[in-house]
């Protein structure tokens, strides 16, 4: 990691620390204060958006570990989120088990299903692997729709999340629950990337043949990436289920899976901060376009042909994504890194 001029590490712990300067700590504490006091100045709607961002972030972190770090392309992530959501729903609704049991089992079940669909990664990669993971998306949704325990096409109700008798009923309490778990997942991903496992993932992504020659067990690490990525998807699914309170399989579409890939590409593949940028950007863009811009255009420009304003949403959404991919293909994380470098060197360019 590049550090401001004059910053030195004298111990291993210092070298490994994530926050290394006083500025880091100040910014981090400021961010925490801002985040934890958000319910004081955000209404239920924006807290709802924040909760959606938090849940999406957990799933995107998992997908980033799988694609960004390990290079295993998966286009079935919404399917794995569905596995977690329905596992938690069935355990807490039908079997009346505690939320925490549902949450953990959701992660484990999604991880196990991920392992099954990850097996082809040993033999195929790239687009071929992408096609096998698309199969996961369709098979999982088909099973959910046709298995009576999940409520089929009708759907299933999900109770409020509760821990030790405390029910997360309000948007605020759900916000703290989701933010806590998202923070744990972010911290885990950041550290995982710096371990032997993370380095093995990167080696496999960069050249799996070379990685194998270096003694990395491809089967083990590829499946481990699928397990961890899908485990996080399962956790996100469980939180989504308890947040919405009702599930049906249409909430987990292929479009959603593709959107997840879009998020981590726009954010920056293979970085910890990338998914955060990508998720916040895409979810806010969706909200601003559909909630602010379109109703405004519809109300204001009544002379426009019918359907014009609503047609603007997908066009603008696509346009912004295309512009990003053209202007900053390495994602927002790269732009952030450039900004930090420029800030550290300022006022000197070199």
């Amino acid at each position: 990691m590049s550090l401001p001029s004059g910053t030195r590490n004298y111990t291993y712990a210092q070298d490994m620390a994530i926050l290394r300067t006083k500025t880091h700590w100040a910014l981090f504490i400021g961010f925490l204060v801002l985040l934890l006091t958000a319910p004081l100045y955000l209404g239920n709607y924006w807290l709802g958006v924040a909760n959606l961002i938090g849940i999406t972030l957990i799933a995107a972190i998992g997908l980033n570990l799988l694609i960004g770090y390990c290079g295993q392309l998966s286009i079935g992530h919404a399917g794995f989120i569905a596995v977690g959501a329905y596992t938690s729903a069935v355990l807490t609704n039908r079997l009346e088990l505690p939320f925490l049991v549902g949450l953990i089992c959701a992660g484990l079940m999604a991880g196990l299903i991920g392992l099954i669909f990850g097996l082809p990664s040993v033999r195929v990669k790239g687009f071929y692997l992408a096609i096998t993971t698309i199969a996961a998306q369709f098979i999982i949704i088909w099973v959910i729709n046709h298995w009576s325990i999940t409520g089929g096409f009708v759907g299933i109700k999900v109770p409020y999340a509760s821990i030790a008798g405390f029910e997360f009923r309000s948007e605020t309490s759900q916000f703290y629950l989701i933010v806590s778990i998202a923070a744990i997942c972010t911290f885990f991903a950041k550290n995982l990337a710096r371990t032997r496992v993370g380095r093995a993932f990167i080696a496999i992504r960069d050249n799996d043949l070379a990685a194998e020659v270096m003694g990395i067990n491809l089967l083990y690490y590829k499946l481990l990436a699928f397990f961890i990525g899908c485990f996080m998807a399962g956790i996100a699914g469980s939180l989504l289920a308890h947040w919405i309170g009702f599930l049906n399989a249409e909430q987990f579409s292929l479009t959603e899976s593709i959107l997840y890939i879009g998020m981590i590409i726009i954010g920056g593949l293979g970085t910890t901060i990338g998914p955060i940028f990508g998720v916040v950007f895409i979810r806010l863009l969706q909200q601003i376009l559909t909630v602010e811009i379109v109703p405004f255009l519809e109300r204001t420009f009544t002379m426009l042909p019918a359907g014009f304003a609503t047609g603007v949403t997908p066009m603008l959404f696509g346009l912004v994504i295309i512009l990003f991919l053209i202007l900053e293909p390495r994602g927002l994380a790269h732009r952030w890194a450039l900004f930090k470098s420029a800030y550290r060197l300022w006022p000197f360019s070199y």
Partner: protein
Amino acid sequence: MKYKKWVVIAGVLCLALMLAVLPLLGSACAGPEEKTIKVGISTPSTGPAAEKGAPMGHANLDCIKYINEELGGVDGHPIEAVWLDNAYDASKMVTNVKRFMDEGCVLFTTSSSKMMSSVMEIANRDGFPGFAAFNAPVLHRPPQHIYGQMPDYGDDWVAFSRYYMENIWKGSGKPKMAMHLLNNTTGYGALDAAKAAADELGIEILPPEEHATDTISEIESLTRIKEQNPDVLYISSTPAPTAVIIKNAVELGMYPGVTIGLGHAGITKALVDIAGADIVEGVYGVFPTVNWGDNVPGMAKMTEYCQNLHPDDYGNMDYITSWAQSLIIAEILRVAVANAGYDVLAKGGEEAWQAVETQGIQKLNYDVGGLHGPVIYTPGDNRLSKSVRLFQIQGGEITPITDWIEAPLVKYEEFDWFGQ
């Protein structure tokens, strides 16, 4: 050249900033604040159900414009519509409903059963009254805080099947009915009714087939259906997939031959436009509103607004549904204001929601200008209108063939399989 990239980035940022502040500019240009009553309206105006959602959104807003400008709002209080597109996406619908709650809306509406199903638990948990134009049994059985504007998809099936047995079926024994269902509450609402009432009506139900909103071919599923020699094919779906199924049935030589019946989500002008009038000629359908041009008191004003503001929607029966929905909203608010007072509603929040429900919706007794059946709340039955009519596509026109048919309440929750 050195600065070109930065200029482009700055340009993109400026564009994004301009888009973000547009709504603020709009609110800055608004007139002095009036004592309004807010209602939340969410339609799938983009996405896979836009062919229904867009005209429905137009109708909602056109009618509210009419109510505010010509009828003086609700007892002098303009209705403020907080309209949000949901793109037929559940997570967007969830945040939309939270926004409605935040903005002080006293109730919210959806046009599709799928969107309502994704938020009904949130609304039920908080007691926020929801009002679904198109609805399925699962939304309000057992009844809580979600209300159906019209009979549900199950009622459509019962009405069509009863008509078929009384007027079309001339054979002996039980006719065989195949069902092609959209893979959500729109489709499976009809199946619930078939499970509940097929024996009583004397109909044999073949194993149902299902399809998705984006289907492009149903040759395979229709081939399976054809092998079982059905007498009648019932499709409960939206117009685009319904058009695909009927086209494929024609290609396979099934139609004309079998009788085809549609639920109210499918029989609309969009179906005729997409499939072609010759393909869908003779198809039956159930719809809970009158048709364009019918001689009812509410027709003239609706036609005037539609032709002035959204002429492309003229002839689309979904427009009628949502126009009627907005008229009913106004009546709910009028009754609620009369019984509970404006101040209670103006506060928003739980007290207002409860007032709208107990002092408005549950005291309704309203004729929607004849646009659909009378709107009356019956305890234990959250369907506000309970009447449907049978239509047939004749010469490209959706033509009524029956008078209003009362749809009896089916207590689905008393069946063990319901919701499983």
